[in-house]
């Protein structure tokens, strides 16, 4: 089984998407978790979830924004070193700061906490194809609606190459007006259909290239 995900920054928010089994729906998925009303966490591997759950149970109060979350989780990992390598990609909007988006990767290597800040877009997991396409197609200034279409296309095209990528997609958006929201199953289904249509169109247009 391969897992692939994408965090895309848009001018009006952040989108987090990951592949999922067919029965996954919204919060009922194994990769993306809501941390607080403005922050999402992409989990690197199943062993990361119990660590995050233990952190959230211990955190008092739960941090309100992504920067606070990263700082607090980093301290938690240093104080309670996990027995296995775990990783988290944390994305969200800073409260009280207009347009302050944050995308950071936090990995416990077994010895230390590594923290990397990303400019806004981050491809996750088995990401070669998604990264290749996104670098050529997507900026930081599109709308969240377009980011949803883009994420569905990236994950769908990765699955064309890596057939172990799971067939469904879960998505969540974080914007200033609504905070963290799961994208509905109906909307995701339409996005997957649309991504497939774009993929076929690309294939058709490539016929005369060589």
């Amino acid at each position, binding site marked *: 089984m391969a897992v692939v995900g994408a965090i895309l920054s848009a001018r009006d928010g952040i989108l987090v998407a990951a592949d999922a089994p067919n029965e996954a729906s919204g919060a009922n998925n194994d990769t993306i978790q809501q941390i607080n009303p403005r922050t999402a966490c992409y989990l690197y591997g199943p062993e990361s979830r119990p660590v995050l759950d233990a952190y959230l149970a211990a955190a008092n109060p739960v941090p309100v924004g992504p920067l606070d979350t990263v700082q607090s989780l980093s301290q938690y990992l240093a104080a309670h070193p996990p027995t296995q390598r775990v990783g988290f990609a944390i994305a969200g909007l800073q409260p009280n700061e207009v347009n302050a988006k944050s995308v950071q990767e936090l990995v416990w290597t077994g010895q230390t906490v590594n923290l990397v800040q990303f400019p806004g877009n981050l491809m996750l997991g088995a990401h070669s194809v998604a990264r290749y396409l996104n670098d050529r197609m997507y900026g930081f200034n599109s709308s969240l609606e377009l980011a949803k279409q883009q994420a569905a296309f990236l994950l769908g095209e990765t699955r064309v190459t890596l057939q172990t990528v799971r067939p469904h997609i879960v998505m969540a958006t974080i914007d200033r007006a609504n905070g963290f929201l799961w994208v509905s199953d109906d909307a995701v289904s339409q996005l997957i259909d649309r991504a497939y249509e774009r993929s076929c169109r690309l294939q058709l247009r490539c016929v005369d*290239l060589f």
Partner: protein
Amino acid sequence: MTLALALRGSNGLVLGTDSRVTSVQLQPNGQPQQVTRDTSEKFLQVNRDIGVLTYGLAEPGYSGISRLVEQAKRERYPSYKEIETAAQGIFQAEFTAWTQAQPQPGAAATGVVGFILAGYDSVLTNQFKVTSFQSSSTFQPQEIINPTFLAAQFHIAQYLSGKLARPEMTVDQLTQLAVFLMLETMSTEITVGGPIQLATVTIRNGFRRVSEEEIDKLLEICQAKTRAFRRLLLELYTEGLST
């Protein structure tokens, strides 16, 4: 890592690799650092109609293909099948010798090295053949029947070949496609890079290495193809903007 490919067309084969070797060295502060060199020779000609290429671990890879070439010259194997059989034993022996020479043989044995033997079988089947050997399957020969075989850092190239390759393509078209796949992979994966090594196999000319001058011309042709492909991707994106 490497990108290694074998493409089958209507009139022959195209084989290719990059020339980058990636290793990990310890810095004075004890931190590991990835170091790359673009000097690796990853494929050799075995006889008039057959070539062999390697990917993965550089050392057992190169010694494996060199020894196969020497042995094939010495033994004058008459058919593709006999070279294939000899190759399995040689690759396994070289890999075992390499792992035993490492400080931690158990860990070294989990390393990945692979080989692609490809050429025209003019004795038994009169067909173009591609065979894969991988350390993970004790170098058991696996005949490749798909028109496209890509190994090691293959994801981007496989995605693109799925869009661009067609079984009726000629060797000339496939050499362009091979360069395009290499360039696009190199633009994203830092472990693939350096001069492109290419060869063709046709009935008329047998195994023939594509010269540096020819590769330079192919690179120029591919600049236009790269631009055209990026334009297609951007068109798709902007169609999303307008709906």
